[in-house]
């Protein structure tokens, strides 16, 4: 399993570093712009007033005034409520699809299956390598805000970035686990992406719908985007226990289901 883990990391770390470099570049830009934008916060607040409150809420802004209140509220709204989740979801789905279904589609799985290596060891070797790289991605795309803020002499609540890292990691870890499950049961990458992206998009829509109409409010509990609130984690420094439970359970359940399915299934390449 160690060999699979190590080889997977060696094959994929390049992609993680590119993603992280892009995110760090964006962080540099936002933190650098923040002092200038904050000085014009009054004018922006006027513009924001024209947006419906529920619309702002759906996109992670609790209120227009709160937007420039701190670097955390600014970063939460600009980076960690939408851009970062999109990057995280893409990266986690791509890693998960590459774990199993990509090997089946390409036909390389027969090389792997001919080795004296149990299916479970291969599955978990691949799974944990991907999870480890997602942890690295999360850390390198959230925590650099602390030194960059120092560089620009902007004050920040550093411990909240660690809390955001944990919440964000659990969030993309859950999506990674769901996609790994589909990767283990399908024969085509397109099907894996269709199923898992379908689930993520449905959850995103449910979250928006729940904030638009009061009678649809309960739909929010079926959405990961309800539990993963960058503003709660980063601005309020609050780790909701539901976030930990929902994402941890999702990770465990889908990982185990994926392992069972993969170890039992027929694997025939075309």
């Amino acid at each position: 399993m160690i060999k699979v883990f190590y080889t997977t990391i060696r094959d994929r770390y390049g992609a993680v570093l590119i993603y992280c470099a892009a995110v760090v570049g964006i962080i540099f830009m936002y933190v650098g712009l923040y002092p200038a934008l904050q000085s014009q916060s009054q004018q922006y607040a006027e513009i924001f007033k024209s947006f419906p409150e529920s619309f702002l809420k759906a996109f992670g802004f609790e209120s227009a005034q709160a937007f420039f209140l701190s670097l955390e509220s600014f970063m939460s709204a600009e980076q960690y409520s939408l851009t970062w989740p999109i990057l995280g979801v893409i990266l986690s789905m791509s890693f998960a699809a590459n774990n199993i279904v990509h090997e089946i589609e390409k036909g390389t799985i027969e090389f792997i299956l001919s080795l004296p290596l149990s299916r479970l060891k291969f599955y978990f070797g691949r799974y944990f390598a991907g999870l480890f790289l997602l942890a690295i991605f999360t850390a390198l795309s959230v925590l650099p805000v602390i030194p960059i803020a120092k560089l620009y002499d902007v004050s920040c609540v550093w411990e909240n970035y660690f809390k955001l890292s944990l919440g964000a990691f659990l969030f993309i870890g859950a999506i990674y686990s769901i996609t790994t499950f589909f990767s283990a049961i399908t024969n085509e990458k397109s099907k894996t992406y269709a199923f898992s992206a379908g689930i993520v998009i449905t959850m995103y829509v449910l979250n928006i719908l729940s904030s638009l109409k009061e009678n649809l409010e309960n739909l929010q509990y079926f959405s990961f985007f309800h539990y993963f609130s960058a503003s709660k984690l980063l601005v309020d420094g609050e780790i909701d226990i539901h976030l930990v439970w929902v994402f941890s359970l999702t990770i465990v359940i889908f990982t185990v289901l994926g392992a069972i399915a993969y170890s039992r299934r027929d694997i025939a390449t075309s």
Partner: protein
Amino acid sequence: MEAAIRVKNLKKHFGATKAVDGISFEVQKGEIFGFLGPNGAGKTTTIRAMMDFIRPTTGEIEILGKDSQEESVYLKEKIGFLANNAKFYDYWTVRKHLDYQQGFRGKSKILGDLLKRFGLNPRIKFKNLSSGNRQKLSIILALMNEPELLILDEPTVALDPLLQNSFHQYIKDFAKAGGTVFMSSHNLSEVERVCDRVGIIRDGKMVAIERISEMKLMKMYDIHLHTAGEIEISTLEAEGAEVISHTDGSYTLKVKKDINPILKKLATLEVKDLEITHVSLEDIFMEFYQK
């Protein structure tokens, strides 16, 4: 003699499709067993079930005395496998593939010799290899850890005749040293040259298992006959004889087993020319394919 492979009533159904439908056979240790059959007959499905890539609907597969599914990891240490049209990682070099396998199966003592014998440069990335070199990589991966059993799905596809000969010699030596070879092939002359026995599968069923030496003794003849004039086809009807083609007093017949009934018929005709030959082993294989 001890069986290296024992397959008993193997069935693999994919929904309504019966890919393999109750085949049984044994391959003895030290034997080279050819596995033949037309496309879609169930050869690759059988091999995949033997390698535990797919699970049988019913039936038993025992390899080197162990259950192929329960002892899959143990057996893969003993088996050198070559997949039909094997795929590898485009961005890995040949060396990385070899090292990866060695990470699981231990360092190969014969890798240097194999690379030299097959003339493969280990520094080239898989995506840049020609189809012949890709096949060489598959062969080297199958052989490099000196397995007890080789399971090969069309091993010489894309190899030039010189390398085919080199490979044939290698597996003959391998079998002489006590190794067992189970190989599927569409190359009938290869099977004739290399294998001790053949199993022929068609529509998921095993239609024949014969020793090559016995197959060669199977009496089948081609008869080319020219008569003075047109004759009725029914005149040539005899036990075991079949008219394959006829034009303007020229007739081609295939005769199985006893040639005497047709000879008696021919003796009654006015024959201008007659040629009787033994059919090749390839024709005998084709008989089984088409039965």
